[in-house]
């Protein structure tokens, strides 16, 4: 830049060129400088992926250099310094955005289903598993989702910031989205901390590593300490966090708006991971292994030591991967796999951009507008392909070697009234739905004291409900539980921190904590009353209430009342796995699997679950949960006692009719042939 300035220095105003200098040269100089600046910017800071692809089914050997968040190649210092003294291999943590993003379009990937919830760019689609803000001490369990599924709260609805969301849920959140805000305001006391802690970049290795060396616990510990920038390096086993002071505590001592400390901790790299060319080997695959999915998507139906009873999904047993059906392209818009999903897919501008690029590559003559229109049409039509990856789509076509649908003896009406999952997925229904644990809700995959069946949040399955398509499907269900303030009809949940400050909740003794680390002892009416009264004394922001097990608890006329309330309505989301083999599907043992007077599909009882004593709890039968008619269901089941008799009568009657028809039919044929032969004789 100095050279450029010196080149133009003879044209400075002092050199006597007057208006020419002011009007032409100076603006031109600025233009040149700006152009050069832009050029340098794009060379140094461009994070767009390079346009290089192998496009082979053989995974590319990812022996690649690491880049830090500034785009610089990470080179651990040599073992011995210039002074001959040993040096620690300290360097900046690696950035997935600038390491993986070197070849894979990070921006396009960030549009994917796992990362786009907070952006609001994707349609929410069928309600899925929410995050559940759980705090055993305050008996809080609030379903949360950025997607706005009915029955969940958006984080902002309950006063939870994006930063708090990340600190609560990053343990099972692959990064990006709320963890990677587009712009960080240094004046923001929470998000500003990310100038120190770093953003939570999408960690590609969580899903794509195949080496089995990804350390989720190390990542969790790093995230707990708010070492966001360092977490991917630590979790990948590239090195250790090289400071006694974590990023969270550095951020604690930093004041918003002030300069960010320049000396932030480094990663103490494992030299053995670097080859002589300074490359690091990542064993990764586009097709994410099953165990990687399981870290976030395990549903354990057999709890504790009984896990060994658990059968895996029949597809996994058959050797398929989750991603064989739950596929995605570069945009990571993963196929969720439910029928009708194609209507819920959002074609983002990024997807159109990517496709437009391909269209123009293959057809150089097409102009930009036409290419975009064509790209849009192509993406629209690909929606149909998504439907072939549903249960029905795959098994109708025999795709991936799937057995074709047979369903012998099953009247077709079942396929109009039931989803495939109703008969094939989840645990076999019993007289009551069973408690299950999920990774996202119960932090499976992370070491903790054994989680019992009462550990919050209590999630039960299968609940047979009717979906938006009118079909009965199995669901998981959780009942929200939280303290809130009621202003008119507006119910504002309180975050656990606020509750802990003000409420007089029973404190478990140290013995209890050792025996019951998840504080599963239910609250008594007296304890709830005491807590509500303590809230009421402290604030005028609204009437304090407690929502639990489907009821709203409040103080009325000085005494506790508990009534069923829409605010306590459970949140349910469809389950699809584990899929049982066909021989264990409902109906495989006959119609009575569902059409019996005690069949779980209709008559199993569902009790509202929550951190309160099970007294006068809300209990519903399955038919009631979905608004069916009990008498219809039970009478229909009753008719099945007569089904064998019906078959016998109708078959017998049909046999008689058949005999009569054959008898007279044959007689008719006989008389016709006799008549024909008589006519022949007469003629002869």
């Amino acid at each position: 830049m100095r050279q450029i300035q010196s080149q133009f220095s003879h044209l400075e105003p002092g050199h006597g060129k007057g208006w020419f200098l002011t009007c032409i040269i100076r603006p031109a100089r600025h233009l040149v400088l700006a152009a050069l600046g832009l050029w340098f910017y794009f060379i140094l800071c461009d994070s767009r992926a390079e346009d290089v692809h192998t496009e082979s089914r053989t995974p590319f050997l990812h022996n690649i250099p690491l880049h830090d968040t500034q785009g610089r190649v990470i080179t651990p210092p040599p073992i011995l310094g210039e002074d001959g003294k040993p040096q620690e291999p300290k360097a900046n943590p690696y950035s997935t955005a600038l390491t993986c993003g070197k070849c894979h379009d990070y921006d396009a990937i960030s549009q994917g289903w796992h990362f786009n919830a907070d952006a609001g760019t994707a349609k929410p689609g069928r309600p899925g598993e929410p995050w559940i803000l759980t705090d055993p001490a305050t008996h809080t369990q609030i379903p949360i989702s950025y997607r706005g599924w009915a029955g969940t709260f958006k984080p902002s609805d309950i006063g939870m910031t994006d930063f708090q969301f990340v600190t609560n849920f990053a343990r099972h959140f692959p990064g990006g989205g709320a963890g990677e805000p587009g712009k960080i305001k240094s004046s923001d006391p929470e998000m500003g901390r990310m100038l120190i802690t770093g953003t939570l970049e999408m960690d590609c290795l969580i899903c794509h590593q195949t080496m089995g060396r990804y350390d989720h616990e190390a990542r969790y510990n790093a995230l707990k300490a708010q070492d966001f920038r360092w977490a991917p390096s630590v979790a990948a086993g590239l090195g250790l966090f090289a400071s006694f002071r974590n990023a969270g505590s550095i951020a604690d001592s930093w004041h918003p708006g002030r300069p960010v400390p320049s000396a932030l901790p480094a990663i103490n790299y494992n030299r053995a991971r670097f080859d002589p060319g300074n490359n690091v080997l990542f064993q990764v695959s586009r097709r994410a292994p099953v165990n990687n999915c399981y870290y976030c998507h395990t549903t354990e139906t057999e709890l504790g030591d009984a896990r060994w009873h658990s059968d895996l999904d029949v597809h996994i047993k058959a050797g398929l991967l989750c991603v064989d059906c739950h596929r995605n392209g570069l945009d990571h818009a993963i196929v969720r796999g439910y029928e009708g999903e194609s209507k819920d897919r959002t074609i983002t501008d990024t997807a159109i951009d990517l496709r437009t690029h391909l269209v123009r590559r293959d057809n150089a003559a097409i102009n930009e507008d036409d290419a975009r229109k064509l790209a849009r049409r192509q993406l629209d039509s690909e929606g149909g392909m998504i439907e072939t990856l549903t249960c029905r789509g795959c098994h109708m076509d025999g795709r991936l070697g799937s057995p074709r649908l047979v369903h012998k003896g099953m009247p077709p009406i079942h396929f109009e009234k039931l989803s495939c999952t109703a008969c094939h997925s989840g645990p076999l229904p019993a007289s009551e739905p069973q408690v299950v644990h999920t990774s996202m809700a119960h932090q499976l995959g992370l070491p903790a004291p054994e989680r019992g069946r009462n550990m919050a949040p209590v999630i039960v399955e299968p609940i047979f409900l009717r979906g938006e398509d009118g079909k009965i499907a199995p669901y998981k269900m959780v009942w929200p539980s939280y303290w809130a303030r009621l202003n008119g009809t507006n119910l504002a949940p309180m975050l656990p921190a606020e509750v802990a400050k003000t409420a007089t909740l029973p404190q478990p003794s140290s013995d209890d904590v050792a025996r019951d680390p998840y504080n599963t002892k239910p609250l008594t009416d007296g304890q709830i009353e005491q807590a509500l009264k303590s809230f009421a004394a402290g604030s005028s922001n609204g009437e304090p209430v407690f929502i639990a097990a489907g009821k709203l608890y409040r103080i009325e006329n000085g005494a506790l009342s508990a009534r069923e309330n829409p605010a306590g309505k459970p949140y349910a989301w469809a389950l699809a796995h584990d899929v049982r083999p066909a021989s264990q599907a409902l109906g495989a043992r006959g119609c009575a699997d569902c059409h019996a007077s005690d069949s779980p599909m209709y008559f199993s009882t569902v009790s509202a679950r929550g951190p309160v004593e099970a007294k006068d709890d809300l209990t519903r039968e399955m038919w009631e949960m979905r608004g069916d008619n009990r008498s219809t269901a039970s009478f229909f089941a009753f008719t099945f006692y007569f089904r064998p008799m019906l078959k016998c009568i109708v078959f017998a009657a049909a046999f008689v009719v058949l005999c009569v028809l054959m008898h007279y039919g044959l007689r008719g044929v006989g008389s016709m042939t006799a008549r024909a032969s008589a006519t022949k004789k007469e003629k002869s």
Partner: protein
Amino acid sequence: MNRATGKFCYAVLCVAGFFLAATGIGTFALGKPPMTHWVLMAHVAVAPFFALGLAAVALTWSDLCRGGVESPLIGPAKALFWVILLAGLVVTLSGVVPMTPLFGTKGEHFLYLTHRYSAIVLTVAILFHLPMLARRRVNP
């Protein structure tokens, strides 16, 4: 067989048949097929009476309806009788066979359609047959 038995059997066939037509074809024509709930249960409950009536009619009326035999029935009535028997057989079998594990989804669907359209044929045949009987005052 006496005349009363024949008439009774035909009456059972007609009453049950029209009830089944009302519930089955009625749902198909006016409601939202397929039948469900109470309508389906009523339909299935009456079906055995229809099947028994059909068998009884087959036994009591068939001799009268033979071709080339002196009978109070006119030719078209005889022909329709055999159409009723044949369609009735198809209707009953296509109604009950789906309750057995013999056919898969495609077969079940085919049987369902067969049941529907043979039932329409049967109903139309009975509707044409009845006035013919009334005009001729048939005593089987």
